[in-house]
């Protein structure tokens, strides 16, 4: 019985050993990264408003509103500034508008979303198969 336990412990410990090596490798560049002050303020705002309960970032969140990982790239900062200054109706709501922000807050939150936009994630979200096909056919026509 004792031998069995020891073999089990040794096998089980291989995984954490590999994990800690990878952990060191993954964390060291992340820990050295300097985060601009307004991005940090924007992130606090993102959390305190509970945005993640509806939206997702990197695909993690509430699944009831669009993913915002690449929103700065897709919409542009001007659109987002106007969005928070004069929030539109939250589609498909008919009565409730998206919560708004004062100018300073909006600037911080957009700085945070712009920072998220630049995080290097390879391969997600995937390029739409359809738009890819369209691009290819366009290329062929030209």
């Amino acid at each position, binding site marked *: *019985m004792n031998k*069995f336990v020891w073999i*089990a*412990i040794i*096998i*089980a*410990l291989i*995984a*954490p050993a*590999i*994990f800690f090596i*990878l952990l060191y*490798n*993954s*964390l060291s560049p*992340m820990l050295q990264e300097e*985060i601009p002050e307004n991005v940090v303020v924007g*992130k606090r705002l*993102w*959390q*305190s*408003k*509970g*945005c*993640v*309960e*509806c939206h*997702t*970032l*990197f*695909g*993690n*969140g*509430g*699944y*009831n*509103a*669009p*993913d915002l990982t690449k929103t700065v790239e897709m919409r542009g900062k001007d659109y987002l500034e106007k969005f928070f200054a004069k929030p539109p109706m939250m*589609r*498909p*709501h*008919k*009565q*409730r508008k998206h919560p708004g922000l004062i100018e300073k807050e909006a600037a911080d939150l957009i700085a*945070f979303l712009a*920072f*998220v936009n630049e*995080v*290097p*994630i*390879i*391969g*997600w*979200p*995937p390029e*739409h*198969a*359809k*738009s890819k096909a369209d691009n290819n056919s366009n290329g062929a026509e030209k």
Partner: protein
Amino acid sequence: MRFESQKAAYKYFIFTLVLLVLQVLFGLITAAQFIWPDFMAQTMPFNIGRAIHINTMVFWLLFGLMGATYYLVPDETDSELYSTKLADFQFWLLAVTGVVAVIGYVFGWTEGREYIEAPRLLDWLIVVGVLAFLYNIGITIIKSKKWNSILAVLFSGLAGLAVMYLFGMKFFGSISLDQFFWWWVIHFWVEGTWELIAAAITAYLLIKLTGVQLKVITKWLYLEVTLVVLTGVLGIGHHYFWIGTPEYWLPIGGIFGLLEPLPILLMVIDTMRHVKHSPELHHNRVALLWLIGAAFTHFVGAGLMGVVQTLPSINKWTHGTQLTAAHGHLAFYGAFAMLVIAAMYYAVPNIVNRQVSSSKGIWAFWVMLISMVCMSFILFGAGITQVYLERIMGMDFNYVKTNFTNFWLLWRLVAGVAFTVGTIILVDDFLHLAIKKPAVNRRDIDAGL
């Protein structure tokens, strides 16, 4: 019940049911809001309702697991609990903290990270409560000098659970670091430490309900734990695909994610083997039914529904859709909710010294299980719809939601209503157990007593 202090578990189980009812209620409201966005939009907006839905779940599962632990430990150590006063103090501390947290969410007092929304001040109270719990359990075990496999696995799971919670308390300016450590709480809870706790409680219930020997169970338990650690630790890689971490997490998360169902499959085989070859099955068939159901649903919900999305080449299409919600619902229900209910069905009748009336427990089992399986597969359909229309065709999120996924989500609400009916039957059964006068034993009537 062999020891008086096992009664400490009772309060925990009652509060478990209260929170379960709350969770289901807020689940209903938020499920309705997917379809009718303006339903209660001013009084209970979706973001608050959802925070309450997922937090009451974490809380009731923790209360249930703590209750099961308080019932189990005196039994396994052959001694009274170190302190029932401490158990009571800890109960009230955590219960009040939980209630304050829920009320806080209504007023927007949140840390804004999924599942661990509780603000910092409440975090510290939770830490104090959990430390008091670990101290109570730890001292009881040490004093008894009876470290068996169940106690060892259970205690390491509980201690690990507490340690992982600490990583969720720090604020990170970097979103990648935030996600990196957020997954330490979420993944190392449900795919690590909670699995150890579940394996230990399953082992305990198997001994009690099937009469299998501890010696036999021990071998299975250690094998399961080895596999949980071996696959679960590096399996965290499947959450590090798209958060800005190095690329080597893709193959690692894929491979170890694929292996993660193995320990769960082992738990199913283990359970069925001992039930089939049981020298004498316990008369409490309701608890046994819930235990067997837990093993299978755990495997389907956590194992299969997770493993189909774990390869990076598939995950890049499915990640961030309702497929995750499908997996989440059935996994939590099978792995932990059903197990907690099984433990309650075993422990509560012993604590109140009454026989469980089998019919209601069996009804609750089937109604809740079938509706939850339906809900999960409906969400799966919604997720596949999203993958096709949003990811492949490139359609807009809101357009797909209003025109396509809502068809599925309406049926999800129907499943939710059915699940609520099951929950009412379950709670009603426990209320009867707790309140009604001792039932007259059928055999006594037959014997003319």
